[in-house]
């Protein structure tokens, strides 16, 4: 199978650290440099400067864990929502299409912070979910809409001939989608989806507003008690950076795994 759109130039924009690629020529890539600089600075602060940094590093690990949990659960849920939305958006059924499109329109028009407040406090009157669950649902609902758009674009990018070929071989619509279209779409959408993952991770810092004890909240607790604002936010920023760098590397590895039948 020829992979579609192989020679079409794609405008890539990143909302997090750029996803490192094999094609990045040169001895030192920006990714490596950032990683070395950030981990180096953090290590230097903790092991050489010690003092406050040591106490900080002992104070925030559970926050990092919470940030991680929120991210992972939100990603899983958002992917499901995104796939459903994407399929709904290309569906030929008028009503399914309308529902999916309306969901995307509504969610994309409300700032994430407002959505978080809404799901947590406004809906708290009817549904009493724990804070973590509310945070994950809000993140997933928001990012599900964005991912849905990416899925839709990926599905539409697959050449019409692919569908025609599969249908003439006797595949049903659902089978065509499952065995022919989606596997190819996956490869196209992985870079933008990976990008969304990184954005989602950074946006989890917003859940600290809901008193979820994530990395940022732990940092704020430490800072407002010790008055060490500079030290605290330096460490918090570095930790976020290191996590997003690692995540972007994971995405690029996944890309390589998925592109195994593209001629290199």
């Amino acid at each position, binding site marked *: 199978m020829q992979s579609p759109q192989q020679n079409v130039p794609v405008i890539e924009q990143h909302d997090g650290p750029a996803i490192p690629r094999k094609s990045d020529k040169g001895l030192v890539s920006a990714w490596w440099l950032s990683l070395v600089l950030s981990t180096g600075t953090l290590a230097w602060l903790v092991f050489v400067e010690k003092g406050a940094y040591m106490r900080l590093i002992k104070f925030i690990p559970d926050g990092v864990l919470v940030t991680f949990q929120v991210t992972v659960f939100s990603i899983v849920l958002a992917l499901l929502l995104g796939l459903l939305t994407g399929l709904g958006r290309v569906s030929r059924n008028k009503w399914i299409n309308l529902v999916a499109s309306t969901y995307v329109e509504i969610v994309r028009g409300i700032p994430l912070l407002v959505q978080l407040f809404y799901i947590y*406090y406004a809906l*708290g*009157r009817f549904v*009493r979910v*724990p*804070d973590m669950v509310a945070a994950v649902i809000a993140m997933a609902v928001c990012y599900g809409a964005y991912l849905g758009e990416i899925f839709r674009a990926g599905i539409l990018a697959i050449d019409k001939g692919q569908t025609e070929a599969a249908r003439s071989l006797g595949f049903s619509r659902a089978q065509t989608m499952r065995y022919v279209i989606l596997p190819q779409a996956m490869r196209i959408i992985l870079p933008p989806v990976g990008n969304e993952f990184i954005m989602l991770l950074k946006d989890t810092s917003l859940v600290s*507003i809901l*008193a979820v*004890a994530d990395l940022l*909240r732990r940092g*704020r*607790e430490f*800072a*407002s*008690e010790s*008055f060490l*604002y500079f030290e605290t936010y330096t460490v918090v920023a570095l930790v976020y950076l290191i996590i997003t760098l690692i995540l972007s590397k994971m995405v690029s590895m996944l890309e390589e795994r998925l592109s195994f039948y593209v001629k290199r």
Partner: protein
Amino acid sequence: MRKIVVLAALIALFSAQSVWAKTIVFATDATWPPMEFVGPDKQITGFAIDYMKAAGKEAGFTADFKAVAWDGIFAGLAAGKYDAICSSVSITEERKGTMDFSTPYFKVRQALVVPADSKAKTLADMKGKTLGAQISTTGHFAVKKAEGVKDKSYDEVGLAIEDLFNGRIDGVVCDDPVAAQYALQNDKYKGKLKIAAIIESGEDEFYGIALKKGDKENLALINKGIEAVKAKGIEKELIKKWIGQ
């Protein structure tokens, strides 16, 4: 010509202000009823606000209030973004290390607010439960010190109370006038919440005005004002007006 007149008038206005009365800018996190909060007319109001305005009248300064979020309010003082903090700041030894305090203007204790149907009588009854408090308040410190209690910090005490009301946490610890405001007087929470206990920490806790370390001039002015308000009985009136008993 008209421009010049307007300019002259403006200059006169500003200079008049600075000549007749010194302005002291107070940062306040106006989410702490009845001490300082935003009233229905969108103006910052409350016991401490009236108190400082009265103190200004007595000592000859204009009290100007600036709304600032609690988290970071001390950093702003250190950075010189305002002259003082009037935001129910309890005077603690740790805080004395980084800022100066005025004469105390109000005595508080920490209260534990629980749902009306709760059986809890003391803080010890809350073992294994989650207690909320506003981030880095003395209430939050008390929760952190308590044995076997999970703490949860909020940006504003109102959000903690709302979470308690919605059943997400088991109690809230905050200053007693605030607890009374929410549990006994607030229309929404009245009858649904109650004050289970006053937490005895062994030492009295007082509110003071926080100033930048070494700011003798404003400290003297504010202290003079506070003492006058106490001596003239204005304090009693304010307590009657805002707190009741």
